[in-house]
Structure formats: C-alpha cells, structure tokens
C-alpha cells in the first residue's frame, strides 16, 4: 500500500503543469522580441492585426476565468517615457476595492512595480535608462516599457502569473559592451 502511494507520487500528473517558453512579437516588425514561460493550460487568444495603437495588447491569455494581457509602450525619445508609478495609480483607480499591495520589482533590465488587489495583479516595468540609451532609435520595440495585467481569481493563479512575469524578457539579450 505504501509502495503504491509512493509510486503514485512519482507518476501522478501535477495540477500545475510544466510551462513552455513562448515567443511574442512587439508592435513593429515580424521578429519575436519577448519570451516568457507560459503554463500549458493557458490559452493564447488571437491578436489584432494592427498593433500600432498601444491600447491593443501584444499578447492575451485566457487563464480559467481570468484574462492576462501584455502591453508594450515604445517611445521615440527618453523624455516621453511614462513612469511606472503612473500606471500603478491608474490601476488603483480602476480597482479601488480592498487592499493594494505594491512592491518594487526588477529583472531582465526592467525595473518597476507590482500591484496586487483582490481582483488583479499588475506589473508596470520600465527599461533601465542605461540600456535605453544604448539602443539605437530604430530598435523602437526593444526600447519599449511593458505592463502585464491579470484580471481574475488572484488567489488561484498568483503563482503562475508571477512566474510568467519574472520570466518575461527579451529573446536576445543586449551585449554588455554596448553600454
């Protein structure tokens, strides 16, 4: 009996499936810019054909009863950039109910804030100024800031959303010598 239980532990399917790496395009061009670890049970929804409007997400996933959207915001110049605090304030107004847990996060060359409420988790991330200035203006998609927003049952999918967000990065890194 004990042996079957132990074997069951080794061979049972986990409810949290192993994620796979998925590539995502930016707003311009056909080459993928971003990659992230996406759990297998997430369903990717079709993108709009024209992504030049920054209100359109560059990726959308259906996760159970919730929806996760990824937006990026390319900027032509350094001064145009909107700080992550502004995104966080906007989300706080959209989801005023309950406690707002805000923490600072940084990874993959981006830094910003994570907001969690009863109904949503949001990451507002800005590219480090050092890296922004090292990129050529023609690399406009790479110079973009991004947001990841999940609206749905936060308690059920918090861990998966956080893993997706922490793994979200460029497909090809910038060489340090370019800084």
């Amino acid at each position, binding site marked *: 009996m004990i042996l079957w239980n132990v074997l069951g532990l080794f061979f049972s399917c986990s409810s949290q499936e192993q994620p796979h790496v998925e590539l995502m395009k930016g707003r311009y061009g056909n080459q993928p810019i971003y990659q992230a670890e996406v759990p297998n049970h997430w369903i990717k929804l079709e993108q709009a054909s024209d992504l030049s409007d920054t209100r359109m997400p560059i990726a959308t996933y259906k996760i159970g009863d919730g929806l996760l959207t990824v937006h990026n915001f390319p900027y032509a110049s350094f001064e145009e950039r909107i700080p*992550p605090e502004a995104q966080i304030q906007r989300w706080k107004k959209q989801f005023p109910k309950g406690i707002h847990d805000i923490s*600072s*996060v*940084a*990874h*993959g*060359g*981006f*830094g*910003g804030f994570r907001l969690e409420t009863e109904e949503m988790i949001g990451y507002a991330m*800005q590219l*480090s*100024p*050092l*890296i922004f200035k090292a990129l050529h203006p023609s690399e406009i998609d790479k110079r973009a800031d991004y947001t990841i927003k999940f609206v749905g049952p936060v308690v059920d999918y918090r861990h998966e959303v956080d893993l997706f967000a*922490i793994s979200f*990065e*460029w497909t090809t*890194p*910038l*060489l*340090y*010598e370019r*800084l």
Partner: protein
Amino acid sequence: MLVGGVFVKTHYGLQGHIQLLEGTASDDLIHPHVPALSIEQKFPSLIQSVPLEQVKIVEYFPHAEENYQPLHPLEEWIAYDRGFQGYTVQVPDEIALQTALKAHLDQNLPISPPLELMRHSADQILPYLKAWHEAGTWLFDQPYSRVDWEKVPESTQNALFWIAEIFDEDHFIKRLEDKKWPLLESLKTLPREEQYALWMAQIYTIKDQLPSFEKKTSPRMLSAYLRLYGIHYSIIPKPLKEMPLTHTIIPKSAPFKKEERTPAITIDFKGEKISLLFNSPLKWPSKGGNFLFRFQPHREKIPYLIRLHQAVNIKQPGSDQTASYECTLTLIDKRTGNKTPCFLSMNKPYETMDGYRFYLAGMGKVDTYGVKSVQLVINRDPAKMLLTYPGGFLVTLGTLLLFFKKKDTKG
C-alpha cells in the same frame, strides 16, 4: 606535482571578471591588472589594417591623471558619432551669452541706452539680468555699481524715478485707482504684465509734463529703464555653443593609495602623438576618426556567453543589512549552443564540466527602479584535477603515514 600545478595555473590558467547588467549578456573576460592598447578601425574593409610597427609607445607614466580642458567646468560631454568625430562639451547659456555680449561691446557697436549705462561693468550685466530674472519681480531692487545717470536726459530720469516710486506690483490697480490714474480703464482689460508695460509706456509718453524731483535716484530706475527697452533675461535668445574638448596627461609622483596609481602612455601613431590614461571611459579618435585608441584592461573571450536574468539583494529581516546576494544566469556554450541555467549566491560558485568556475563577487543598483549590475569572477585551473589535487592528496597521505612509521631501533 603541487609545484607543477601552480606553474600550469600561472601560465595557462585564467582569472578575471565580467560585468553584467540585468538583461544583458557578455563573454568578455576582463583582466583588471593587465594593461593593453586597444585599436579599433571604423571601416576595417576599406582602410588598410594598421601594422603594429606603426604604433610606438613614446612615454610611459606609472602614475598619472587625466586633465580635460574645455572653456569652463564640464557639464555634459557630447560625442559625435560615438566619438569618431571627437568630443565636445556643451557650454551653459550664460557663458555663450557673455561671450556674445563681450564681443559686441569690444567692437564698439551701438547698444541700447540702458546697456550703455552698464557698459563700464560689462561683466556684471549678465549676472544682474539673471539675478533679476530669478527674483521674479517686474522691477528689481538690487543696485548696479556706479550708474552715471547724468548721461540720461533729465526728462527720462524723471519718468524713471516716478515709475520706480509709484509702481507697486502687489497692489498695482488699487494704487492707480487711489491715485486716480486717468488711463486706468485701458489697463484693466489686459493681462498683468501687459498692464505694467503699457502703464510704463504711458508714463514715459508724458515724461515732459511730469513734476521734477530733487536729484533722487532709486535702484529700481535701472530695471525700469531696461523694461522700457524690452530688455529682460527671459526674452534674450539663448545661443547654444559647444567647445571642443582637449585633454592632456599629467604625470604624478606615486600616490599613497593603490587605487590612485593610474598608469598612462603616450603613443606615436603615424606621426600623431596620443596620450591615454589607463581605463579612461573614452576611446580617442585619430586620423579623422578612422582609428580609435584606448588604454584599457586586457580582455579575453571565454567560450561561454553569460546572460544575467535577475540579481537579488536579500536583506536581514527588519533591517537594511544584506543577508545574501543571489543571481540567476544562463550559460550559453558558444561551442555547442547548449544553454544551462545556473544560480549563484554568496559562497556558492558554479563550475562547468570543463573547469570554468563562476563566483558572484559584487552587486550594485544602477537606477531608481532597482535594476542591478553584478560582477562575476571567473577562473579556470586546467591542471587542478591532474596535478594540484593529486599532489595535495599525496602530501596529505605522506604526512599521515609519518605517524605510523616505526622507530628506527638500530642500536
């Protein structure tokens, strides 16, 4: 075997560090104490390669500092085309303006009457205008040295005196109402600063009918005079000027601190002398920017491209003291394309199968949102398993066996 292991490590081993920022990758190992001269060609396929004989080291200074000579203290460097055309510094508005004003005065070109009164202390004109602008008032109370009002027609002096005496910025309209100013209605409809300007013009128009005063002067008269001629710091167009940057190397006697002992060299490249300080951040152009020189730590490529994903500084609970540094990396073997995720933390290095060891040596924050940089120390000892460890084992075994050696009983 131990000595052999040390010899092999010294001559064939590897030790250096790599700098990374989150989101970046590098395979460039830096040997910080090994100086090297870096020569880059802008268009390698179009320009003949540089034979090494054409680069001669003319002078070497074990201790030196770099000296930059712009017209005035640096604010920001501008490098054209990544330095290929040279470097300049952007001069602040005041210096450019002062230079233009001085050039105008030196040529004895006609200037407006209020500035003519200030000509004797020409270097004070701009500071006065700037201080007035910063005060934010319509008229300025600060006196200007030795203004000779005798040069100004008496009726103009009269008008300026009455303007200076009557004008009250805080209660402008009320004061004029109390004084029953006849042209008040035409002023009330205008924005504030236009009210002031129009009223001053009205006073100036009737200057010959104004009662005269007993040779009094007021500090505000000068600013009133400047206002009548529309001279104010805020409306002067600010020219943009850039000064070419030149630099020299200054040899120094040996400083006490090791970190201040910066070496420098002077090289002769095809007849052009170039002085370079060790590890200076800039590459210096030569031959119209076609060649770039830098005196820098020796760099070497390693067979792994290291990508830094995230660096974390874990604090002690309830305090700002650091408990641990950690980072997540991916090592990409350039020879096979294999990607290996790895995790480094304090006192926990990572070693590849071919003997490259990666240590997390330092971490720092580079911007306000917490993006971090890390320094990795990398070393490789090719003879570690063949000579050094077996040699150490034999020495240890021999030492232990000494305790079991029987005493010599030869009598």
